[in-house]
């Protein structure tokens, strides 16, 4: 058990290192000069002043140092939890900008990923081997899962937001409101949350339902199912066993899909101008905000890695075979 998790942690550590390095590299090798745009924002024409500002900002952000030094500094700062200062929202620290956006993203991703997984699995399992449901659910599932996130998001925004006017199409809450803990505000939050959530939920749902339906059919054909039927066990018990076994690959699937799901969530946020990390990334790119971009990516990488690690632990709990493998096989 210890060796297993030790190895896992090592792999996660390596992944983290590589991801953070790539993370650091991407904005620096992007075309464009953030300092130039900052200086341009200040509308200074005096060449000397421009030069002074340029030197000041370069020094402030540490961009005047050689690349390798910047890289070392970056890790040093990271160790202190210091992500640097945002260029776009100068002089707010990146950490503050991100902390404001994270709750929105989490509130979107966690329920949509978990709920779509749970509901999709239940639904797929129920539909398997039931002709009528199978013939209706399956095509709908394929259509849903083949849809790009943003396309469904745009459709929903257009249908429920513009055409029917039931839901707002932009923002995390009404512009007329100030964040507070009143019921009206919470309801307003939910109202804005509904459409982005729904688009994420629906796209993922189809995939899980199809996967589960196929797995259940496979499990119902398996030897232990035939044996139970031959002993006259009711189909309720056989289906329960099949579900238990079929859910294992679905858990692996969840771990594999996590990155895609997060990417989808980020794009969806942009469609609905939802004030989460996705919108933040867009703004950071538009403003060549190295530090914000770095910080956001880092946060996402961390989140995905942690989620994967949790899934690893869950898998060990639900599949006795992994545990048996860890303890060494017994005769």
């Amino acid at each position, binding site marked *: 058990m210890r060796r297993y998790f030790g190895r896992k942690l090592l792999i996660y550590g390596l992944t983290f290192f590589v991801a953070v390095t790539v993370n650091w590299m991407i904005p620096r090798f992007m075309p464009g000069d953030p300092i130039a745009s900052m200086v341009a924002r200040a509308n200074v024409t005096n060449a000397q002043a421009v030069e002074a500002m340029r030197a000041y900002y370069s020094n402030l952000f540490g961009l005047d140092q050689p690349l390798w030094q910047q890289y070392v500094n970056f890790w040093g700062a990271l160790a202190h939890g210091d992500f640097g200062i945002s260029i776009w929202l100068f002089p707010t620290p990146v950490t503050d900008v991100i902390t404001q956006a994270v709750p929105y993203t989490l509130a979107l991703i966690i329920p949509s990923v978990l709920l779509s997984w749970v509901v999709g699995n239940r639904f797929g399992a129920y539909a398997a081997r039931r002709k009528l449901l199978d013939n209706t659910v399956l095509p709908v599932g394929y259509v849903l899962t083949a849809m790009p996130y943003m396309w469904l998001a745009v459709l929903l925004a257009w249908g429920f937001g513009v055409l029917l006017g039931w839901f707002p199409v932009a923002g995390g809450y009404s512009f007329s409101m100030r964040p507070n803990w009143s019921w009206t505000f919470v309801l307003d939050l939910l109202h804005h949350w509904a459409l982005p959530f729904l688009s994420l939920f629906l796209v993922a749902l189809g995939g899980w339902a199809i996967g589960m339906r196929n797995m259940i059919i496979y499990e119902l054909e398996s*030897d232990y199912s035939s*044996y139970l039927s031959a*002993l*006259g*066990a009711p189909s309720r018990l056989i289906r329960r066993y099949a579900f238990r076994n079929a859910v*294992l690959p679905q858990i692996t699937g969840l771990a594999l899909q996590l990155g895609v799901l997060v990417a989808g969530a980020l794009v969806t946020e942009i469609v609905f101008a939802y004030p989460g990390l996705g919108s933040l990334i867009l703004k950071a790119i538009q403003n060549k905000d190295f530090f914000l971009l770095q910080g956001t990516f880092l946060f996402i990488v961390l989140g995905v890695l942690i989620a994967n690690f949790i899934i690893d632990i869950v898998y060990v709990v639900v599949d006795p075979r992994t545990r048996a493998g860890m303890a060494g096989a017994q005769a």
Partner: protein
Amino acid sequence: MSLQVSELRVYYRTLKGDVRALDGMTFELRDGEILGLVGESGCGKSTLGKSLIRMDGRMRRVGGTVTLDGHELPIDDDRRMNDYRFREVSLIPQYAMSALNPTRKIRRMVTELLRSRGTALDTAELERRMDQVGLPREVLDRYPIELSGGMKQRMVMVISTLLDPSLLIADEVTSALDVSTQKAVARALLGFRDSGYVKSMIFVTHDLALTHHIADTIMVMYAGKLAEKAPADVIVKAPRHPYTRLLLESLPEVGVRYTERRLEGIAGSPPSLLDPPAGCRFRDRCPIAGEECAQEPPVAELAPDHHVACWKA
């Protein structure tokens, strides 16, 4: 009479037409009798085993009846057949190695299975039977993956017979085992019969030598029909059907070196059951076939309990 099968016809539905896997089987099985069912692949022996407990979706009963202890079994009604499964007819499947749910500990699986059939688990009885086949009791608290192949096989044997069925079908149970394990399994099956856990047993196999050790009666099938049925010793020592004789001749004998003579197989192959030829189905491969073999031979009782379907016997 515990089991009576009369004129049973079970066909497989395929796109090309019906495959007549069982074409009019009639036989009886007494209480306490172990029947060895032998024949080459595709002769219908597994189909017969399946028909008695659970037909798969492609199988169709065309005619005939199966009566167990005076009740006619609704073999082609999956739902009504459930009442008889496990309690009256039980199965040790060919795939015993993978017959246990991999994600349940064995104790829990057995408890849930029994509860689903409306019975509580009698742990003392279960453990007694495990002792009898030499399974340590810790096995109950393990997952199937933690057991060896032989242990899984024995566990399945114990589970299948837990409700003391009247008829047990052991379908190729020894095919995947090495010789020493085969012997242990055969002995365990005999023990089950002698302890009264099962009244009678059909032992489906293609291993004539092993069958001889445990079966009271051996039934040889060919191309969906009964060829010969007789007490085990008679089949081995004085077979009357030419197919049985050739089958025995194709087995190597212990202590004999086959340098002079090559071990003969039976030339040719069984007829297609999709559209079987009229008359005796063994005719084309039979060394003594004659004119009359164009007619189908009836099953005749040549001596008490010795049934043969051959004109020349």
